[in-house]
């Protein structure tokens, strides 16, 4: 009854190619954005349940937003273009460290040549975006093997990126401005004269980034470029025959995906962590992102959000649940149980719905349109 597009006539081409052609979808999105942009900050400012403490905002919503952004980036590469990548964590790290270097000023001495390149410290916004661009450049570089290999072989190639950058950020002191502990601190977050400090402000900042980049991604995958990516994913030879250049399609996918992941990495470091070390972007992060994309649904922007929420919240729930139920378990047992249940859950989801939550939602929508009739 509620979800039916009967009577919504498309009278112009613009309506026909609209991003959300069904009115109910538009309303749902507007409500969601309204809650996210106005509702949550209001509740959090006046400390109304469930925002009584900063916990929900700080430990769940903030990482959720940033990881969802990274998952969107991963999804563009893995879900839309079909190139498996185990190096997402490295691209997050590149975004984070490039942004850090740019925000604190770059100084490259060429001692042998007798001159040095110096860039004065840039504003935070510029360094975050440039960090994303650096990550895109690295993505293109490590995407070159994808022109010759694919599938799990490519995964190993991207793994090379992961381990190389892990090592570089750990061992080359230039990246950390010669910090003795190897851990670096984010600069103060100043945007156009406004200082971002409290959790609510940080949340809103990430929300703006995520909304803009998710819109960008959604529009890219609907357009010419996205269709090229999907053609390459579905059958590369046929795509090449109808005139799609694999070189261009694949490398743009790597570039766009790495850019988004890089921005997410910079946000993760600057806004969420504040001070970090290379361990924050290890192989585990890459696998986590891949899980989000697969559980959420390959080739779905919406799915990236759901996947990120699931992968983030499931371990927290598993951690809290035994204490809430009053089970007398030691912390160690809880950790192990958490591993076991999380692993089984992933296997179960993969077996039951290999196309992820996004598929479940589209099935649900289809059912809803016919409701209350079964056909």
């Amino acid at each position, binding site marked *: 009854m509620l979800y039916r597009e009967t009577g919504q006539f498309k009278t112009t081409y613009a309506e026909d190619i609209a991003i959300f052609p069904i009115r109910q979808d538009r309303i749902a999105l507007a409500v969601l954005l309204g809650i996210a942009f106005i509702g949550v900050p209001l509740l959090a400012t006046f400390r109304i349940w469930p925002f009584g403490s900063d916990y929900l905002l700080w430990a769940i919503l903030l990482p959720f937003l940033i990881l969802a952004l990274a998952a969107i980036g991963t999804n563009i590469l*893995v879900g839309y273009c079909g190139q*498996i990548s185990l190096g997402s964590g490295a691209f997050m790290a590149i975004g984070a460290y490039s942004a850090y270097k740019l925000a604190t000023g770059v100084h490259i001495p060429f001692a042998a040549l007798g001159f040095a390149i110096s860039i004065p410290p840039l504003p935070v916004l510029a360094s975050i975006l440039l960090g994303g661009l650096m990550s895109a450049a690295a993505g293109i570089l490590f995407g070159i*093997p994808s*022109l*010759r*290999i*694919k*599938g*799990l*072989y490519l*995964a*190993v*190639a991207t*793994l*090379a990126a*992961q*381990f*190389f950058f*892990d*090592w570089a950020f*750990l*061992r*080359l002191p230039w990246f950390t401005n010669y910090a003795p502990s190897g851990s670096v601190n984010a600069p103060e977050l100043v945007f156009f004269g406004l200082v971002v400090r409290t959790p609510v402000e940080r949340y809103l900042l990430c929300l703006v980034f995520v909304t803009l980049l998710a819109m960008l991604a959604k529009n890219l995958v609907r357009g010419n470029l996205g269709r090229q990516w999907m053609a390459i994913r579905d059958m*590369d030879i046929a795509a090449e025959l109808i005139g799609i250049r*694999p070189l261009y399609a694949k490398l743009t996918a790597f570039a766009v995906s790495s850019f988004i992941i890089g921005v997410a990495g910079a946000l993760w470091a600057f806004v969420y962590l504040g001070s970090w070390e290379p361990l924050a972007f290890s*192989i585990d992060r890459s*696998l986590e992102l*891949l*899980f989000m994309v*697969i559980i959420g649904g390959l080739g779905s922007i919406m799915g990236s959000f759901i996947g990120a929420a699931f992968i983030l919240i499931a371990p927290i729930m598993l951690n809290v649940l035994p204490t809430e139920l009053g089970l007398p378990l030691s912390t*160690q*047992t809880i950790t*192990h*149980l*958490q*591993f*076991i249940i*999380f*692993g*089984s*859950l*992933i*296997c179960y989801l*993969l*077996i039951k719905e*290999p196309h992820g939550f996004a598929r479940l939602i589209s099935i649900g929508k289809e059912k809803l349109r016919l409701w209350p009739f079964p056909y």
Partner: protein
Amino acid sequence: MIAFGQFLEVLIGGLMSGVLYSLVALGFVLIFKASGVFNYAQGAMVLLAGLALVRALDLLVANGFPLWVAVVLGIGFAAVIMAATAWLIERFVVGPLVNQDALTLFMSTIGVTFVIEGVAEMIFGSDVYPLQLFPTDAWFLFEGLFPGGILVNKLDVWGALIAGILVAGLALFFQRTKTGRALRAVADDHLAAHSVGIPISWIWFVVWLAAGLVALVAATVWGTKLGVQFSITFLALKALPVLIIGGLTSIPGAIVGGLIVGAGEKIAEVYLGPSIGGGIEYWFAYVLALAVLLVRPQGLFGERIIERI
């Protein structure tokens, strides 16, 4: 002469540790050959086998069994555990996921990794357990030729010996036995093998069991070297470049790849490491694998199953 002696020592040390990588890589190859599954859980299986073995040994020795009886019983116990794991994985994960694409199967083995790690540590404990099955002292060779001689670890020699026996055994198993032939048939073409009456799920159980037993062997050697501990699971990641270099479908390739990676990273660490900050071992193997992928995507010994673009 000192420089050459040192080089030989580094080379031999590298080759020997390469053999140990090969032991883990072998398990990968077995499963990939027969079912096309890229088994991330191999490292976790090594951990499980090692923990089962070392805990059983401790218990038996503490109850007054003579050492050799304890070793035999302990290995038997660990083998039973690996068989149970193989059956569970085949029955509940890989079986239902048949015909899904490679990425889904790969991710499901990561799920399996979590479960195995959790179960293994919950049942057997999560400390570092020392394992003493092989001698760990060193020999000094060619003392007349080089000052100080060349240091060779006895454990590494044992590891090489065991790897050799294992490969010979696996080769015989694949070539000479009925099950081995069935395995190769399934590896070539699931559907064709199925239609001539080869029971696929049984074959897959056998493959996972074989991988489990290889993991047990790897656990005895690695456990003696490092102690049985959680970090053993990261070996799985070290085995990936070994596989790429050797070829994903070749058992000798796993051995040769392991040797190349082991020797290469030790030599690079010793001779290049100091000039660029050390710790090259961490990524050297992957960059080597990347180079091999670009030049010869199927690896040194692999079949040309890879789809070229």
